[in-house]
């Protein structure tokens, strides 16, 4: 299975690209096609507008833009895909971050005639910030540039220059025409000069860097059950692996114990891997509650109340100076405040600027946070599961920021 996000400004043809992927893999079913034909005809179009397949809310269908994250599902014989289709507008950066947070791959669109736009820089940076290791730049509208290799290479060079400081581990480029289909699913014959696979084949064969098993065990406790023989700690392994007999440490108590059982509805297991939801049983009586972390003894995270992190401000209201927030990290929610704002990132130049008077929506800032209780975290780029957090405004209950521990 592969999860990928798509990012591109409204005119780059992102929605058409997804529509093309769904259409050419025969995922668009007859009633959807019929609805598409009707909707396109109502707009006076004489060919089905594939971008309408992914726009869903009334307001955006009327305006012809995407204003929220739409999740689309399709499968080929080789793989199941989850697509987070995210908007390109600056005011919806927060939705782009949302879609990117669970993606293994980012597909960034560019218009071959326009090249590296400010919007493209923003999307590349957000993909990097959210820890996406694989970025595929789909250089679109090749039909409008005569399918020219030179035009494609010029765009590729501009992107590579900008992205160099980001050190994206796997950055690739594919020339496509979403409108006509070249190199999206079918190769076509108009870009024989391109040696690589079509976009879909690339997505089918790309193996996301899964170093999760090599990471230390992180098991955030969701629930505690008193069972006949022992207490059971329910949760999902966030990283690493755990075997019966392993020695683990429980935080915050810092008490150590051996794993005496790993259980699911089906019965006993010898081990659990990152992504598995299980019940852990430990030898010995340790006081563990929801929000605690069971970690690999010897490679445990350091409890910290002072945290350095990057924030993407998601809330419509700016941050209140000295405001109190709730910081939710894994299964633990603690009161926290923003103690210092170190700098604001200019996503178009990757430069650092002095922070403005208040952190505003879509700002990306580096901050120092002070939590009232310790948090057991890892740097985000090392461990997405235990390096991420959100800030919640306790008055509105809104999710106001996405955070990544440095």
């Amino acid at each position: 299975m592969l999860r990928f996000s798509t990012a591109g400004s409204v005119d780059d043809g992102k929605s058409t690209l997804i529509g093309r992927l769904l259409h050419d893999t025969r995922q668009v079913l007859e009633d959807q096609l019929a609805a598409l034909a009707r909707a396109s005809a109502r707009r006076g179009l004489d060919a089905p507008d594939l971008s309408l397949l992914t726009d869903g809310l009334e307001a955006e269908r009327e305006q012809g833009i995407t204003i929220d994250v739409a999740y689309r599902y399709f499968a080929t014989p080789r793989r199941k895909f989850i697509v987070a289709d995210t908007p390109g507008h600056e005011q919806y950066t927060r939705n782009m971050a949302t879609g990117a947070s669970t993606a293994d791959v980012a597909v960034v669109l560019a218009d071959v005639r326009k090249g590296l736009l400010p919007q493209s820089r923003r999307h590349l940076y957000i993909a990097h910030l959210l820890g996406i290791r694989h970025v595929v730049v789909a250089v679109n509208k090749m039909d409008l540039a005569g399918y020219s290799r030179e035009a494609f290479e010029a765009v590729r060079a501009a992107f590579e220059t900008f992205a160099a400081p980001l050190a994206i581990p796997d950055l690739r480029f594919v020339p496509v025409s979403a409108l006509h289909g070249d190199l999206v699913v079918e190769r076509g014959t108009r870009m024989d000069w391109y040696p690589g696979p079509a976009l879909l084949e690339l997505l089918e064969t790309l193996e996301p860097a899964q170093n999760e098993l090599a990471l230390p065990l992180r098991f955030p406790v969701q629930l505690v059950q008193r069972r006949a023989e022992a207490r059971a700690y329910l949760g999902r392994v966030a990283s690493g692996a755990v075997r019966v007999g392993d020695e683990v440490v429980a935080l915050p108590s810092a008490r150590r114990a051996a794993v005496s059982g790993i259980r699911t509805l089906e019965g006993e297991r010898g081990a659990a891997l990152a992504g598995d939801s299980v019940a852990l049983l430990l030898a010995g009586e340790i006081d563990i509650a929801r929000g605690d972390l069971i970690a690999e003894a010897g490679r445990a995270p350091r409890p910290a109340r002072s945290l350095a992190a990057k924030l993407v401000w998601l809330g419509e209201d700016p941050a209140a100076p000295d405001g109190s927030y709730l910081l939710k990290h894994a299964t633990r929610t603690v009161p926290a405040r923003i103690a210092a704002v170190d700098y604001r990132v200019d996503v178009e130049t990757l430069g650092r600027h002095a922070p403005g008077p208040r952190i505003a929506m879509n700002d990306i800032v580096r901050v120092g946070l002070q939590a009232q209780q310790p948090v057991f975290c890892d740097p985000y780029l090392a461990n997405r599961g235990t390096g991420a957090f959100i800030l919640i405004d306790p008055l509105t209950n809104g999710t106001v920021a996405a955070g990544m521990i440095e």
Partner: protein
Amino acid sequence: MKLERSHLDWLESEAIFVLREVAGECANPVLFFSGGKDSLVLLRLAEKAFRPARFPFPLLHIDTGHNFPEVIEFRDRRAAELGERLVVRTVEDSMRRGSVRLRSADESRNAAQSVTLLEAIAELAFDAAIGGARRDEEKARAKERFFSFRDRSGGWEPRHQRPELWSLYNARVAAGEHVRVFPISNWTEPDIWQYIAREGLELPSLYYAHRRAVVRRNGVLVPVTPLTPPRAGERAEELTVRFRTVGDISCTCPVESVAANAGEIAAETAAARLTERGATRMDDRSSDASMERRKREGYF
């Protein structure tokens, strides 16, 4: 140690994680259970999440009064087998209270369900309602979060949905508000059937091929029932059909099929040319924005 995890394993674990988060974060949750296939999958996932303990929530069915008797019987039997508490609230009761008024006796009650649903949530003070909706079902659901905020009137405003990143779910609500939770958001119809086959889940017999009297009307097969008799000029035929989805009798259509078990249905579904709702729901055809409007009004 088995290293491979199938996509079904991944989806299952995600749903279990979401259910446990509800238990950990919400004071008074409830799970919508209709006896339909998606809610039966949810029950199985709840077993996986919580057994050997009881579920930390009751089951709730909003009964339109227009369900297939087989499904109601199955609903009751399954709840009893699980030993879990089932609460039923009916659209008929809302009609008696006057909060629901139908324009005609045979009007579809699907929209009226919203009213009864919100009344039940208010009556029993639920702060979280777990349902089996999936994002692949319909355009307006493609944008749903796992935890979807509903205001005091139970309405869904797309502009006010909270950003949802990673697996960090914000379930906080003020008094009178609630969240809808959709643990199987990322499941598709083929996934559902593959899971049912894999787990050997029992379903109401309607889902499997059987002989039934139907009339062909507007490109769909309408089941002949006392609520939905043939119209003037229509001729009933007996065909071998199965229901891909079961809902209100007045708006649910079967499809022709001889698939007799979950495995065969999974194969058929993978090759399907029409979406689940497109082939089978008479109410969704009225406009593209039907579901969105119903959600704004507090529907599922």
